[in-house]
Structure formats: structure tokens, C-alpha cells
């Protein structure tokens, strides 16, 4: 008997004509690891919430949801609360208590476990998760990754048999995200807890999962084990779905010699094994003409020191950076190294304690609307009107002179968000809001674009389109500075990369060279091709440029 089964589940939100989910039938077995992917706004989160009935959305539901063969709503609340656990996307908002220990025991106390049992379990889990040193800390002092681990531990302490995860790593940096996924994998393999995870970034998840489901516009469009799905996608030439595949798989699909001699590689190790069989001739790439460095940089950041508090640590510590006009610079680095603060300083939102920011030799004083556009890490900060239409209307009105309405229409179409205009900005999914925020900063041509995590919440296809768009803007002479955790995105579209560490820029070079030198901060494709018989590349696009397959060995 399956652990969880949905039969023809159709769900419609109140006041909506189109159902959010249509005829969803799926089964999850005990101990299975299931991944749900799909474009943003396709109903993935709705499905997950329907399975957790304590927080199920209100609306019209037909079909059946069975848990252990019984309809979910007939089962005792205490049992379902305990056995079906859920982790949400935002690490912050799901924390309830103000100290780590209190957060861990919150669920157990609600279930009425006795003190002795709780103490034993906390001791055990704190050790397993490596968070025993954090137990007495105020929770707001933790990093995003630590917070999400605490959330996970708190749910696991309730001993679930099924764990629902709604894009749990979307807000974490790559190292923290990997740690988190590693923990989820361990929980699945060592405790046999079944997992349903909604996730866009399949690179790290696909090797771990047993089965994958793709949901598009509320319907299941693909289902099967990862390799099977990759093969189906390739056969059907569903080109827009290519972007969902892990980069290793995409490289394989592009360069695999004869079909079906070797199964699709999912991990770096498998990829390296496959690449040994390949014989590739390098094509000499025409040297990219280097910009004239003798020219004065467009933006100069000089000896910036920034701290929030006299006794606090230095967020930015004598940081120097120069950016040329028409450059697309990506800034990477772990959480808390000062990336976002640097962007705010360049935007004129924070003034440094020491040092200065020069734009074409002139000192920056405060924000420069119309010249420097800034996309904050949290897109919600940009919206102050009740509906998106009003917000965009107000934005259009603020532009004196040229009328950007036509451009706006194009952008709405490009980002596929025309349907949401009459909704409240907080009523749409995180991915949709992110797209609208991007439209807001791109609508009028600024000279400088400052983007803080522009790809957050975007599905892979949209990410690709955004990347292309940014490259176009760059070609037209716009200067783009982007802070990102998304290394694949930075490698594919930016022209230069900088690494931040402890408040300074520790390394900066052209994107291709930058990733070649890194062990962890690099792309999967780079890790596969490093020190092998094929020319080292960092992205699929680069491989397309410099690789030529030899006919035979």
C-alpha cells in the first residue's frame, strides 16, 4: 500500500475560473524521495499544501487524497500533524520562538510529549545536526542556512514519516544549500522518511531522488525516474524544458556519441567517467578583445569601510573595486560576506564610514533614480500600490518625456506575467513577483543596473531568458553589477566575476578564468572537464564554442 495517494485531485481557488490543479494523480511509497519541478505559478506549492491539511488552502477540492489508504481528512489531526512534516521556503518566517532550543521543542511540546522523552531526543538530534553549540543562542543571530537546519530539525523531532519541502534551498547560498540537501538525503536514506520536495534547481537534487514529476499549468506533464525523464525530454524535443535539466545532463545530451551506450550521468563522478570516452578537438577561440584598461573606470569604489555598529564587525573592510562602462560583473561569495551591502553602497543607499564611490570621477551622494536602478534582494520592497497595474501605472507616470507603455507591454509579454496585473503584489508567487520587480527596474534605460539575486525564485527557462536579455542590455552599453548565488548563471552570462570574502574582494577576473581556478565556487561542467582529456570549459555555451568532436577514437 502506498504511503500517500492522490486520485484525480482538482483544486480551484475561490474567485478563480481556472483550476490551480487539474486531475493530479500520484502515489508516494514509504521511504521514497520524490521531486516536483515545473514553472513558477504552476501549482506546485498548492499541491504540497493540500497534502498538509492543517494549512491546506481554502477553495474547491475534488478527488481524493489518501494517506495509508484512508482519506486524509478522516485521520486524527494529532496523527497527521506528527507524521506529515513541512518545511517552507523562507527560513525566517517559519521560526516561531526566539531561542534555538525553544524552536526545536516547539512541535514536541505541542504534541504533548513528556519532558524526559523530549530531553533525550533533543540531545540526540542536536548532535546529529551538529547544532549543539547553537542551542542557547538567540535565533536571529543564526545564518540563513543554520536557520533552515533548525527548521528541519524541529520538524524531524516530531518523528514524521513524510516530509514536504517547498523550495527549501531557494534562499540559501550554494554551500548552505548543499549542506541542507545533504542532510535531507541522509534523513531519507538513514531513517527511511519519505520526501516530497518542490525544487527548481535540479542539479543537486536529481542524483538524490527516486522519482520526479513535472507539473505544468496545474497538470502532471512528465513522471518517472530522473534518467527516464531526461530521455523523454530529449526525445520529445520539448526545447523549453531543456533548461530544467542539470547542466551535466545537457552537456551529455549535446555531445553523447552514439545513443544508449552509456546512461545519462547525473553526478560529477558519472560525468567524468563519461567524458573519458569522448575525444574532443579544441577550436581556437578568437581572443575576446579586452577593453581598454587605461580608460578611466566608470564606477570606482575606493577604500570603503562599512559597519552598522561601532563595536560590530566590519561588513566591508577597505574594499576597492573598479567597474568599466558596459561591463556585466557578477559578485559571488558566501552569505554574510558583505555582497548585498556593497551593492547598497554602490546604489547610494548606505553611506560608508570611510572611503567613497565615484561615478565617472564624481562622488556619489544618495540614490540616482533614472540613472542607477537597483533591484533589492527582497522584491516586495519595490511595491507600494494595491495592485500591480496601479504600481506599473505610477511607474509609467513618473517617467517624464518618453512614454514607456509600449516597452512595458513587450516586457510583460516577455516575462509572461500579463495575467497577474489586477492582483495584489503579495498575492502572487515569489517567482512571479521577482519577474515583475525585474520589469520595474528594466523598464526605463538606466546607465547602471544593480541586481541583488535577480534569479531568485525564477524557473530555469525564465532564468535563461533573463540572462539573454541582460546580455543584450550590456551590448547596448549598460553597466550591470549583479550579486548572485547562482554560479551557473554567473558563469553563463556575466563578463567578469568577483569573489567576496570577509568584506573585501579577494579575487576578480574574466568569468571563464575565474571559475577555472575555483574548487567549490565553480560550475558542474567545469568540475567534470577539469584535468581530463577534453579542453576545460565552464559552461555548455563555451563547450559549443570551443569543442569539436573527433569522428572516432
Amino acid at each position, binding site marked *: 500500500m502506498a504511503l500517500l495517494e492522490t486520485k484525480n485531485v482538482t483544486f480551484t481557488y475561490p474567485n478563480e475560473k481556472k483550476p490551480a490543479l487539474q486531475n493530479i494523480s500520484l502515489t508516494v511509497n514509504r521511504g521514497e524521495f520524490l521531486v516536483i519541478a515545473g514553472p513558477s505559478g504552476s501549482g506546485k506549492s498548492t499541491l504540497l499544501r493540500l497534502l*498538509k491539511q*492543517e*494549512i491546506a488552502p481554502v477553495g474547491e477540492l475534488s478527488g481524493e487524497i489518501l494517506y495509508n489508504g484512508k482519506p486524509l481528512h478522516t485521520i486524527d*489531526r*494529532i496523527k497527521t*500533524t*506528527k507524521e506529515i*512534516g*513541512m518545511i*517552507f521556503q*523562507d527560513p525566517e*518566517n*517559519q*521560526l*516561531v*520562538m*526566539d*531561542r534555538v*532550543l*525553544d524552536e526545536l*521543542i*516547539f*512541535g*514536541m*511540546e*505541542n*504534541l*504533548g*510529549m*513528556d*519532558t524526559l522523552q*523530549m530531553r533525550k531526543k*533533543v540531545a540526540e538530534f542536536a548532535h546529529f545536526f551538529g547544532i549543539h553549540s547553537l542551542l542557547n543562542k538567540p535565533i536571529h543571530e543564526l545564518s540563513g542556512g543554520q536557520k533552515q537546519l533548525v527548521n528541519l530539525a524541529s*520538524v524531524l523531532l*516530531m518523528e514524521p514519516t513524510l516530509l514536504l519541502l517547498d523550495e527549501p534551498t531557494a534562499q540559501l547560498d550554494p554551500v548552505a544549500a548543499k549542506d541542507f540537501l545533504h542532510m535531507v538525503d541522509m534523513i531519507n536514506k538513514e531513517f527511511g522518511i519519505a520526501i516530497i520536495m518542490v525544487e527548481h534547481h535540479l542539479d543537486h537534487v536529481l542524483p538524490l531522488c527516486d522519482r520526479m514529476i513535472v507539473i505544468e499549468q496545474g497538470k502532471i506533464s512528465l513522471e518517472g525516474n530522473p534518467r527516464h525523464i531526461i530521455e523523454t525530454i530529449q526525445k520529445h524535443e520539448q526545447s523549453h524544458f531543456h533548461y530544467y535539466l542539470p547542466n551535466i545532463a545537457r552537456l551529455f545530451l549535446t555531445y553523447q556519441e552514439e545513443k544508449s551506450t552509456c546512461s545519462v550521468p547525473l553526478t560529477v563522478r558519472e560525468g567524468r567517467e563519461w567524458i573519458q570516452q569522448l575525444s574532443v578537438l579544441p577550436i581556437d577561440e578568437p581572443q575576446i578583445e579586452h577593453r581598454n584598461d587605461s580608460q578611466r573606470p566608470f564606477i570606482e569604489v575606493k577604500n570603503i569601510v562599512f559597519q552598522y555598529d561601532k563595536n560590530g564587525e566590519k561588513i566591508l573592510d577597505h574594499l576597492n573595486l573598479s567597474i568599466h562602462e558596459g561591463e556585466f560583473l557578477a559578485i559571488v561569495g558566501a552569505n554574510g560576506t558583505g555582497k548585498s551591502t556593497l551593492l*547598497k553602497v554602490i*546604489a*547610494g*543607499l*548606505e553611506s560608508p564610514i570611510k572611503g567613497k564611490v565615484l561615478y565617472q570621477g564624481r562622488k556619489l551622494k*544618495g*540614490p*540616482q*533614480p*533614472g540613472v*542607477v*536602478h*537597483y533591484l*533589492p534582494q*527582497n522584491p516586495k*520592497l*519595490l*511595491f*507600494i*500600490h494595491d495592485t500591480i497595474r496601479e504600481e506599473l501605472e505610477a*511607474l509609467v507616470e*513618473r517617467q517624464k518625456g518618453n512614454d514607456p507603455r509600449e516597452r512595458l507591454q513587450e516586457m510583460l509579454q516577455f516575462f509572461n506575467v500579463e495575467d497577474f496585473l489586477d492582483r*495584489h503584489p*503579495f498575492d502572487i508567487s515569489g517567482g512571479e513577483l521577482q519577474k515583475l520587480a525585474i520589469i*520595474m527596474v528594466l523598464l526605463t534605460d538606466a546607465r547602471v543596473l544593480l541586481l541583488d539575486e535577480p534569479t531568485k525564485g525564477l524557473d530555469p527557462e525564465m532564468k535563461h531568458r533573463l540572462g539573454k536579455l541582460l546580455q543584450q542590455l550590456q551590448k547596448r552599453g549598460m553597466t550591470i553589477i549583479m550579486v548572485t548565488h547562482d554560479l551557473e548563471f554567473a558563469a553563463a552570462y556575466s563578463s567578469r566575476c568577483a569573489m567576496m570574502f570577509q568584506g573585501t574582494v579577494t579575487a576578480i577576473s574574466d568569468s571563464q578564468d575565474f571559475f577555472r581556478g575555483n574548487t567549490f565556487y565553480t560550475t558542474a561542467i567545469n568540475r567534470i572537464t577539469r584535468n581530463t582529456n577534453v579542453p576545460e570549459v565552464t559552461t555548455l555555451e563555451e563547450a559549443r564554442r570551443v569543442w569539436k568532436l573527433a569522428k572516432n577514437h
Partner: protein
Amino acid sequence: MNYGFRTLHPLVLVTYYITAVIAITINRHPLFLFFTILLLIIFNWSIDKGKTLKSWFRFLLLFALLLFLINPLVNHRGQHILFYLFNNPVTLEAVVQGLINGFTFLAVMLLFITFPLIVHSEKFLFLFSKVFPKWGLVAMLAVRFVPLFRIRLQEMVAVQRTQGINIARGTMRQRLKNGIKLVQMLLTWSLEDGIETADSMAARGYGIQKRSQYNPYQMHAEDIFSLLFMAGLSVITISGAWLGDGVFVRSPVVELVFLYGWEWLFFAIHCLLVGFPLIVTAKEEAQWLYWKQKM
């Protein structure tokens, strides 16, 4: 810091906050309030060396000043006219009332900002989740809400400036309009986040049955003594207010600020009540000192 006032039973802690608020609101006398503020500043200092207080201080002072100034400008009642402002009389009574308003606000806020530092969310749930689970939930969300609100408002104002919306510039009408929009959005946002937190609480079974307790709080002798002490003092305070001794009379004549007779007794009791945490902490500090000397 894991000694002193905050180690007392949660019921004692909450009782202190309730009685202190009552004492502040009934003893509306400049001298009472002035000493209350002094004691509460020391209390704040004893908890975290004034870290929390510092982050609030400018805002509190500004708001208190506003309250102090607004009354004489709006309220013109009273016999002692000090001077005329825009053809309106500014009276001594109104100025004193403004001072009391400002002081009361400052005192209540100084007390309030220590609350989350002393009564952790876990202690709070221990007290309220059994009796009023729904209210416990609302209160938990509200406590989270306050610091977030301040941080976000600053962020939002800053980010809107990059969009060309500046609430510090433009016509008054425009500024007001944008300002209101901003605060409105902020409220919606915080409520939205609150829903997410509430979801997370519901997902982990909050309120489905009686909660158990990880920390078994027990009433010790000093807890019971503290409760009795505070109960006694507040009874005297309330009866004092009833007799009119803690109340500052403004009409028909403005009373002298200085105290006389029985009022000194009520003043002392008021200070004991508001300064109760300091007494407990000082007592324990003294015990440590004594213990160290003995070694």
C-alpha cells in the same frame, strides 16, 4: 546573564509587568514618573548594558517630545496663561499635562522594550498557551512584528528612493500620500509574514491539544514571596490613588510638584514596585559577592 530577576517563575515576571504598568498609569505625577524613568533606564542597563535601549532611544525621545509639545498647542484650557502662540493661549496646565503625557509614554515604553528580553517566547507560551491558545498565538506574532517593522520601514524608504519616490521631498500632499502608501504596504507585508508564521505553528500542531513543558517551571519560595510582595505594594498604590495621593492635581489649581506628608510613603512604594527587578538582581549580586569572599 542567567541570574537575577529573569530566573524567577514566568508568572512572577508577567505579574511584575502588569503591576508596573498599572502603577505608571495611575500615578500620573511628574515626580513619580521621573523617578520611574530613571529606575527603568537602570533596569534596561542591568539587562544588556543598554544595547536594546540605545537602538530605541532616539525614537522614544522624539515621540515623547512630540507628545509633550502637542498638548499645549491643541489644549488651551487652564487659568495660568504663560504666553500666546499664533493668537492662542498656551497654559501652564496644558504644559504640565503634556509633560505627564510624554513621561508616561516614555515610562511605559522603557518597560515594554525589556519585556521580550525577560519573558522569552517560551515562558510566554508556558503561561498563556494553556488558558488562551489563540491569544498566545496572536501575541507571539505581535512580538515578532515590532522589530521587523522598524527594519523594513527603513529598507523600504531607502529602496523607494532609487525609484524616485522620496518621502522627505516634494509637496506635503505628495509626501503624505506616499508615506501612507508605504506604511499601508508594510502592514500588509507584516500580516502576510504573520500568516506564514502562523502556518508554521499550525503545521507543527500548535493548539491541537494541551502542550507539555520542556522546562518544568516550579514555584519556589522566593517566587511566592515576590508575588505577595508585589500584590501588597499594588494594593497600597491603588488605594493611594483612590485617596488622591499619587495623582497630580491640575485643576482648579496646579499643585506643587513637591510632595508632602503621606505622598512620600506612596512615592517610596511606587519606586519599590517599579524597581522590583533591581532589588532582586542586587540581592543576588550581593549574595555572589558574599559567597566569593567566603571562599
